[in-house]
């Protein structure tokens, strides 16, 4: 059925317009167009977040005031955190690439509930606008940090309720997407597409969707409680009103720790797609990888309190949560071993997506291994709430998830837009990103171990040298990001037309034209082999079907 001649007669999804002009996008229920809507809005938010990060690092150039005062700095890191977490990295890969490729990879024409899917995007945009609106209102933007800890979030005079409502609405968007994906995976698989023939990206999205559906309501309720407490002075979390601040922290992290896996699991799924394609061989340990996603999703629920080792829990809780945290590290480690093993005796073509994946393996390993320092009680109570943690989560979320989002952007770019990006330029961007990234964040590990707390507008002069290196790193990194995005945008207009299967991949998306037809498949395919069965093309002399 991978027949280009036949497929060319079909109108592709970019030509197929149900409405005029912009409405062809914002009223479309095509999962592919919705994926692109998310992509455009998320990249926009990402650059707002990057700009704030750039300004923060500029402020850190000297102790005391460099460019902004303390209040402004506090709103900067809060908005930076809210944007990067709730508007960029959590929706992230599922919203863009999950939407676009999940139906295609399982041989479906769309997700189970296409209209609900569009509604999710609207909720996402409304939530995002709420979160940012506080910038323009009296009282000033929120200054609580993205964690909204009470009692400060009850007492500050800045606009807290609006961004909280924003996060609440975004939660709904996330839950609905999760529901949609779970149903799609259960109901819409093509004939012959058993669970163990699903690509690992689909497995990862499936595990993620469960976390989204089960964990997100907890944060929704917590947010509503904070709003009630702030607006009506009902004592829930604030001891001055008779509440308990630790209760808030527990509820918050019961969601926000699993949310970490919402961020990383889909990225792991993408890695499990890219490596087999460029190594042209089957993945090493398919079932182990698939089940470790589920294991992570499951154990991930029981480690939330490792964010609270210093907040006053009992000694027993501290010990138990530390032990469980160490154990949850193992499945992620196992995945890394499996990926590296998949390169063994492959036939490897080193293209930009694979370079990003290698960068990911290095950066994410640093992020994961420093996570051991944070799971260990003795070291954690020293480095928690310092720059060590700031470094750790940037390595995991940025070096992990965001880098893979970039990998996915290159990997699927030809399929999504029917154009090739410029390989040379794509590769040129990577050393900037890699070097800039490590200068920016590795220094923060050292700062943190030396005792510089996070969320600090000013600092002791002895930290300055490291901050200068870090700030210069941020410039190099941002230059790299600009080259990368610049290349992709330029290629959108000037790129060469892409073949249906430029990399020689074997999952279903590579068997249909680029860009895909509006209905994906002319005829629903019948699947009779596993997802990474390269024997079908290895008989072929050039390796491409």
């Amino acid at each position: 059925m991978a027949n280009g001649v036949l497929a060319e007669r079909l109108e592709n999804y970019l030509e197929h317009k149900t409405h005029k002009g912009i409405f062809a996008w914002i009223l479309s229920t095509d999962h592919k167009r919705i994926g692109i809507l998310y992509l455009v809005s998320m990249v926009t938010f990402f650059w707002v977040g990057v700009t704030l990060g750039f300004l923060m690092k500029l402020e850190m150039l000297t102790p005391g005031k460099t460019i902004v005062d303390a209040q402004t700095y506090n709103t900067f890191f809060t908005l930076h955190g809210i944007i990067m977490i709730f508007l960029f990295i959590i929706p992230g890969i599922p919203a863009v690439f999950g939407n676009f490729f999940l139906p295609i990879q399982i041989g479906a024409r769309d997700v189970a509930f296409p209209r609900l899917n569009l509604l999710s995007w609207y909720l996402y945009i409304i939530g995002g606008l709420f979160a940012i609106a506080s910038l323009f209102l009296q009282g000033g933007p929120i200054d609580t940090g993205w964690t909204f800890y009470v009692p400060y979030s009850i007492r500050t005079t800045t606009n807290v309720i609006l961004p909280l409502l924003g996060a609440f609405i975004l939660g709904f968007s996330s839950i609905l997407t999760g529901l949609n994906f779970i149903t799609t995976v259960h109901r819409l698989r093509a004939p012959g597409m058993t669970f163990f023939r699903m690509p690992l990206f689909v497995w990862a999205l499936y595990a993620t969707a469960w976390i989204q559906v089960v964990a997100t309501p907890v944060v929704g309720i917590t947010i509503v409680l904070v709003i009630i407490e702030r607006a009506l002075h009902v004592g829930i979390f604030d001891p001055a009103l008779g509440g308990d601040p630790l209760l808030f922290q527990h509820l918050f992290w019961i969601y926000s720790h699993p949310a970490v896996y919402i961020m990383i699991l889909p990225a792991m799924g993408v890695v499990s797609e890219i490596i087999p394609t460029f190594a042209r061989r089957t993945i090493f340990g398919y079932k182990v990888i698939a089940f470790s996603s589920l294991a992570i999703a499951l154990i991930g629920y029981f480690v939330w309190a490792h964010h609270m080792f210093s907040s006053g829990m009992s000694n027993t809780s501290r010990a138990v949560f530390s032990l469980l945290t160490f154990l949850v590290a193992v499945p992620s480690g196992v995945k890394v071993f499996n990926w590296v093993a998949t390169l063994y005796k492959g036939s490897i073509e080193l293209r930009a997506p694979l370079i990003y994946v290698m960068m990911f393996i290095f950066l994410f390993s640093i992020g994961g291994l420093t996570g051991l320092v944070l799971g260990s009680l003795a070291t954690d109570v020293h480095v928690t709430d310092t720059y060590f943690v700031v470094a750790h989560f940037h390595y995991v979320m940025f070096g992990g998830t965001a880098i893979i989002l970039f990998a996915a952007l290159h990997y699927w770019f030809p399929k999504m837009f029917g154009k090739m990006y410029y390989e040379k330029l794509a590769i040129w961007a990577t050393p900037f990103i890699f070097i800039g990234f490590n200068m920016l964040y590795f220094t923060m590990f050292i700062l943190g171990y030396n005792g510089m707390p996070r969320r600090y507008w000013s600092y002791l002069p002895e930290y300055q040298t490291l901050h200068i290196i870090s700030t210069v790193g941020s410039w190099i990194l941002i230059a790299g990001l600009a080259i990368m995005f610049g290349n992709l945008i330029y290629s959108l207009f000037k790129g060469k037309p892409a073949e249906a299967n430029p990399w020689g991949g074997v999952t279903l998306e590579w068997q249909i034209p680029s860009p895909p037809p509006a209905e994906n498949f002319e005829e629903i395919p019948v699947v009779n082999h596993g997802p990474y069965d390269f024997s079908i093309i290895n008989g072929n002399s050039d390796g491409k079907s």
Partner: protein
Amino acid sequence: MFVSASNYAKNVDSVMLYIIGISVALLLIITFAMIIFVIRYNRKKNPIASQIEGNKTLEVVWIIIPVALVLTMFFYSFSVYKESRVVPPNAMNVKVEAKMWAWKFYYDNGKVTDTLFLPAGRPVKFNIVSQDVNHSFYIPAFRIKEDAVPGRENYMVVKPEQIGAFDIACAEYCGLNHSLMYTRVYVVPEKEFAQWLNGEVDDDYLRKYVASHSEGYKDYLSGSYAILFAKGCVQCHNIDERKGIGPSFPELRRQFARVNVGGKDTTVVIDKEYLRESILYPETMIVKGYEKQAMPSMLNKIKDEELELIVDLLYSNFVKNKQ
């Protein structure tokens, strides 16, 4: 850099080295394997891939080894950490009270201070409380912190060993001046500490003792604004640009102050003398716009050395037009 001032701190550093050592080894193995495979199995050299679906033994091995490794980390770390949670019978109690944005320390005999003084070699149990929002009582040189949470009392145990002065920071975000909520701990020998606790010697005696008996520590401020917090100046003066009850400290950058002297407006050059006068005799020169409420005089409330410290600090950090 990496000052560690107690045995506990050194033990924490050992745990850190253990975890980092293993981590670096794993990272190197992963990275080298990855790079070698990419070179060795390049498509040019290896046009046909081998389809290896897995290897049971290998996979079991690389599950079991990491589990074993992390278990050793857990037990080692926990055994070290216990010291900070178990209260020895001879421990001294100090109550730590956090408040936006200053610390207060209460000793059992009723003494209250805003910098901390501790005897070397004796375990201390800190009972940590907060008056308003969350804070975190953090002494990097001791490698330990514990949050100050309103409505509850948290504790941690520390046994200082080395004579010296070490920073105390707030590590849980607490609003505007979070990053300025520094104070210090002075660790002195038992004998000097006892004299101080009984009121035989004053704070300054201990500070000078520390200054002359420890390396690297000569001035007791080193760039932090601790004393402005300790003396309550920040209740009326902000360290950033916002106006408080009084003008903000950054406003001292203007070359001349417009003041009201005995009912007449004049201008005065902002120099060290002006700072001294403003702090000790505020009513003689009231800053324009603040005539309704002059600053309370600090005469007899701060010592001469403290005044000089404050003047130097303000002069070097905020006054821009130096003659």
